[in-house]
């Protein structure tokens, strides 16, 4: 790269998620269009607290390896960097090492020699307690003030980094940056910001591309290319048969975002109130007028998950019209009977465990928000039990089993036999988790909560 100022930076985003797969031809097309960097998110909180709590990935190693092979080959051939954010779904340190291990294997197989940076984002409770005591941790709605015990109860805590650690890794010569938890946007924003592109268009473009093809008229068709310059950005899909329209691009800022006009990043707030979206041609959109307001205080958002217990699931199915005609009554009786039988046989009080009986085909999804009434044709009755340990959860499900097989409605004078799809009827789900943190920590230095290590090999 020469010393002349760069006029535009082209960011290639192949997909919304590393491991989701894409057609390699779309990457080649993006390279041919002049991509300067490939950026991709590998994580999310969208699938719940399990992945952070257990420090495991939602994606499978084979799919991650396949996608990394496609990326590393293309990037190496073009001499451009690859930035991966929120490695291992939740961005724990082991998630970064997991992706680094897969990347090392792929590079060995492909004969590639790329300089890899790993950025760790995991936080320890003791260090965060010092921030808490110093008044540097603040809640985001709807959560209240943080208590030290909450920090201690977490299985894992990560901080969502901004672009600065990624920029630092790139400046240190990394050709592949494997970041722990990062804001979805920081992954795509880092390279353009490093090359002096303006913050408003850069963060806006980064938000628009974070889900790959979601901002196009065919979200299934793969990636996009964003070109950021001094005045704004343009965006086009990598599949020639697919289009971006002013509406499809503008609408993406709504996605998974509570406020459609603003988005907070560690260093400030993206403001798209005055953004203008115009069609450049049938499939490319130009966006201008995006602004970024630098915050008085730099903050890093924390995510934490803790174990709530252990779950066992059991599932039976009902087709008998007599039961279906009184399905709510039957379910209420089931709940009462389960509590009674668990008390009698296991000696557990109601507050020593929890269960949820869900009637799939009746109201399982929306529960008491369900607006429809009327008799269903068949209903799957799922019993989900949560107890302090796995054997207790399974014992409760086993006590419930005769009821799940034979419980009649109050008006029936015989025992029906319901349809179990499998036996044993109990499925152990292991630990269950909940998110505990929705707080930010004030940081004087954007790097202070993160650690960069160079070298492709995981320490394990």
């Amino acid at each position, binding site marked *: 790269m020469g010393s002349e100022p760069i006029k535009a930076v082209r960011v290639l985003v192949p997909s919304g998620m590393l491991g989701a797969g894409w057609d390699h031809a779309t990457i080649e097309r993006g390279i041919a269009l002049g991509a300067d960097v490939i950026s991709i998110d590998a994580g999310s909180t969208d699938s719940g607290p399990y992945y952070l709590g257990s420090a495991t990935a939602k994606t499978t190693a084979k799919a991650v390896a396949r996608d990394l092979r496609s990326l590393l080959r293309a990037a190496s051939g073009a001499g451009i960097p690859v930035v991966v954010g929120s490695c291992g779904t939740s961005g724990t340190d082991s998630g970064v090492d997991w992706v680094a291990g897969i990347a090392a294997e792929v590079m060995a197989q492909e004969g590639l020699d790329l300089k890899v940076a790993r950025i760790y984002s995991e936080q320890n409770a003791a260090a965060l307690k010092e921030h808490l005591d110093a008044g540097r941790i603040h809640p985001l709605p709807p959560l209240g003030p943080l208590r030290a015990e909450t920090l201690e109860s977490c299985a894992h805590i990560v901080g969502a980094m901004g672009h600065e650690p990624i920029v630092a890794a790139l400046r240190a010569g990394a050709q592949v940056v494997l970041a722990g938890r990062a804001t979805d946007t920081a992954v795509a924003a880092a390279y353009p910001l490093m090359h002096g592109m303006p913050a408003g268009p850069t963060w806006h473009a980064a938000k628009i591309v974070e889900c790959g093809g979601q901002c196009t008229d065919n979200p299934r068709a793969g990636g996009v290319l964003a070109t950021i310059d001094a005045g704004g950005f343009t965006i086009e899909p990598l599949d020639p048969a697919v289009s971006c329209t002013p509406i499809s691009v503008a609408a993406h800022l709504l996605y998974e975002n509570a406020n459609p*006009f603003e988005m907070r990043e560690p260093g400030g707030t993206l403001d798209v109130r005055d953004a203008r979206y115009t069609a450049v041609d049938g499939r490319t959109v130009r966006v201008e007028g995006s602004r970024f307001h630098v915050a008085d205080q730099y903050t890093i958002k924390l995510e934490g998950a803790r174990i709530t217990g252990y779950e066992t699931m059991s599932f039976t199915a009902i087709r008998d019209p007599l039961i279906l005609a009184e399905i709510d009554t039957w379910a209420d009786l089931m709940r009462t009977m389960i509590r009674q039988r668990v008390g009698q046989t296991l000696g557990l009080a109601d507050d020593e465990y929890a269960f949820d009986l869900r009637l799939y085909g009746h109201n399982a999804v929306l529960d008491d928000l369900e607006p429809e009434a009327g008799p269903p044709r068949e209903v799957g009755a799922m019993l989900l039990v949560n107890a302090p340990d796995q054997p207790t959860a399974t014992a409760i499900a086993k006590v419930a089993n005769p009821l799940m097989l034979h419980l009649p409605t109050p008006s029936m004078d015989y025992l029906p036999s319901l349809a179990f799809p499998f036996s044993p009827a109990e499925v152990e789900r292991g630990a269950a988790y909940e998110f505990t943190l929705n707080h930010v920590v004030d940081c004087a230095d954007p790097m202070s909560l993160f650690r960069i290590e160079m070298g492709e090999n995981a320490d394990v």
Partner: protein
Amino acid sequence: MSEITLADLAHEVRSKNAGPFWVTLELFLRDADGYRIAADESFLNERVIAELYRVEESTVQVFRIPSLNVVKISFPRPVSQGSIRDRDMHAGQHHVPLARLPVKRPNG
């Protein structure tokens, strides 16, 4: 005559998590006429959403975006994500009560 619902005026009604602690719902109306109906504060407002989703009215945020013919609604997730009471991990099916909200005919 069957009732007209918001879904009939929209080409998409969707819901999704906005982070682990918020649900967001979006009505993409077909045209400006549909938008005018859905964006009418006397018809669709924080109180209506609070009743429909049994959440605190003060926590409901309604955004009206005429340039996109979109009405967007956000509120804190009433059920903790991944908890034993959570039946919709991604909040992907929570649009339905909103979608089937009956709409008064413009001149009816």
